[in-house]
């Protein structure tokens, strides 16, 4: 045996420890360490660490969480319908993930910054982004186009996981601005990076974990484990529960019931508070389920059984909050009806806004490629304009 070989016979490995490490998480609950404050039946339960983070929530806040979820689900349903009618080229539905997105989105402060994937419609809603802006890229009139700095909500990123590095770099910028750990609640800021279970296989996500840990950057990694990366179950991406990966990178990880808006809010608030105060990154795995297809181009009947979907229907995030609000008398029938009415109006607004969204002027495709003039772009713009003009009156 040469010097650099390590004597590690296989039988020396603790088989039980390995088995425990890779034991599948019980499907019904998402694992023993799942943080939950609201059961699927809508019953409030306490958590020794996280109950405190929702203590300040008013009844109005709770009704707000409900309203947010109902409204964005309606926007989502309308967008899916618009795609089916040929008005959108594609839509990525958030159905089932409303609590994960609203709970985390509402935990953000104005000075915090969110880096989404392409499915964070609920977070966008919480940040004040007009839902119509989200439809633009799916209709094909732009690739996003909103001003990220207006709502501290970055543009949708389509390449899986790439935005986690942007989030980490942005968090490093916050550190450089000395906007971490000052104790000033209006100054200290954090970043939240959204991604899915599939993205955890990406190099960029793992590099962002390395960078955030090495720099102690104020970034919260928010993984919505919706169990499916298009057709691949989460087991194809990770041999251990995703939240446990954080430990290997040197920061805490926590698994939260992603369909429990209160628990998501509490866990995210705790992680953001820690990040803002200078304690560095944290990984949150929001254990949820993609109730719909990956996108409107997908057909989940080819790779998953409907019984699984039926089980998750019983854990619906909106139904459980409604049950809680009702049983605790924090909301009445009039409130629920008012939200439904508001959702109907919003759907009409979204539909009309989508239908009246004009195609961009052809020449505009040459705009905004560079800040400063680029001779080739300008030459091709002029060439295209002349070519187009050559057809005028020639019908």
């Amino acid at each position, binding site marked *: 045996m040469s010097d650099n070989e390590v004597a590690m016979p296989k039988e020396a490995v603790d088989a039980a420890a390995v088995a425990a490490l890779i034991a599948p998480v019980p499907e019904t609950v998402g694992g023993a360490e799942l943080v939950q404050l609201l059961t699927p039946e809508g019953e409030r339960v306490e958590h020794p660490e996280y109950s405190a983070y929702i203590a300040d929530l008013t009844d109005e806040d709770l009704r707000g969480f409900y309203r947010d979820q109902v409204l964005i689900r309606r926007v989502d349903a309308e967008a899916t319908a618009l795609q089916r009618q040929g008005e959108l080229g594609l839509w990525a539905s958030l159905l089932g993930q409303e609590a994960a997105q609203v709970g985390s989105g509402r935990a953000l402060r104005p000075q915090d910054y969110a880096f989404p994937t392409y499915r964070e419609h609920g977070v966008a809603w919480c940040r004040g982004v007009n839902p119509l802006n989200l439809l633009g890229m799916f209709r094909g009139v*732009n*690739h*996003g*186009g*909103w*001003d*990220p*700095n207006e709502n501290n909500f*970055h*543009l949708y*990123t389509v*390449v899986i996981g*790439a935005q*986690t*590095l*942007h*989030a*980490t*770099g*942005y*968090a*490093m*910028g*916050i550190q*450089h*601005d000395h906007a971490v750990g000052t104790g000033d609640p209006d100054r200290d800021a954090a970043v939240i990076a959204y991604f899915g279970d599939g993205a955890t296989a990406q*190099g*960029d996500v793992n*590099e*962002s974990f*390395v*960078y955030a840990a*090495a720099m102690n950057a104020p970034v919260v990694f928010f993984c919505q484990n919706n169990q499916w990366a298009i057709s691949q179950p989460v087991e194809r991406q990770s041999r251990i529960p995703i939240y446990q990966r954080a430990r290997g990178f040197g920061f805490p990880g926590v698994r939260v019931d992603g369909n429990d808006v209160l628990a998501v809010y509490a866990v995210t608030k705790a992680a953001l508070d820690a990040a803002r105060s200078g304690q560095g990154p944290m990984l949150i795995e929001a254990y949820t389920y993609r109730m719909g297809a990956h996108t409107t181009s997908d057909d989940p009947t080819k790779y998953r059984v409907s019984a699984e979907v039926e089980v998750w229907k019983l854990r619906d995030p909106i139904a459980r909050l409604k049950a809680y609000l009702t049983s605790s008398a924090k909301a009445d029938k009039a409130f629920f009806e008012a939200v439904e009415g508001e959702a109907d109006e919003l759907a009409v607004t979204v539909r009309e806004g989508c239908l009246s969204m004009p195609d961009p002027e052809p020449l505009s495709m040459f*705009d*905004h*490629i*560079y*800040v*400063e003039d*680029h*001779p*080739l*772009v300008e030459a091709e713009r002029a060439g295209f304009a002349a070519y187009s003009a050559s057809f005028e009156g020639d019908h």
Partner: protein
Amino acid sequence: MSKITIGKAINAGMRRAMERDPKVVIMGEDIGKLGGVFRVTENLQKDFGEDRIIDTPLAESGIVGTAIGMALRGYRPIVEIQFDGFVYPAFNQIVCQVAKMRPRSLGKIKLPMVIRIPVGGGIGAVEHHSESNEAYFAHTAGLRVVACSNPEDAYWMIQQAVESDDPVIFYEPKRRYHEKGELDLAGAAAPRPLFEATIARPGEHVTLATYGPMVKVCLDAATVAAEEGKSIEVIDLRSLSPLDLDTVATSVEKTGRLVVAHEASTFLGMGAEIAASVSERCFYHLESPVIRVGGYNLPYPPSRLEEEFLPNLDRVLDGVDRALAY
């Protein structure tokens, strides 16, 4: 006026950029205490601190990806990629994110960052340390690509690249880092605009367009050719995107002949684009086809063969002779 190496000129240029703008930071592998593997960032961390000269973990996608985030936060990062062949792990971030962020936002955000890449062969290195990958990035809309060839340009161009509000890929001629040239650090002369080519040597019979580490080879070739009565006009392109075709076309209209030389493989290299564009613009002025002199269409060979692979003075002169034969 004093003599300075290209490496030290880039160092001095970055130093000035950092003094001028506190938002300028440098990110890369081993750039702090070590001063980079080529010492281009030497002493900068000592003078500007670890906050501004950031030693990163060893992951290139991470360097570029986090630099994007820094730029989004209002910083102007200079990224150092250690060697040309190590930029590929960051290719996705550069091509999909750096280049496309501004159009994605319909012009609402900008991404001012400089990605410095030591480029080319001739240093006897192992695999992945001698590549010329400029065509990939010049092909990518949204990026600007420049290549310096001498200390004076290096000093000014790095500062201009930092000042640009667009992302700039900045190629440094690796095998010439230690070559000296004149640089008037105290001089007030306004530098040439970053994206303009320059006539490095005027001539009458053939235009020889090149950039980066090949500029010196081409100037030497012109000197030799002059002894044989052939007058070569050498153009240092300096900018590869945008490409200053006006300067090239004006020269070709005078000489009627064009040779393009670069280390990169000729197939779909910068020379191919220049040949096509000049053929379109200068068809009636051309006395011969545009001749390309470049690397062969191979993965970069083991270093014991690189002298055969890289275009040298004789290969450039052979190209000139082929152009003049028509």
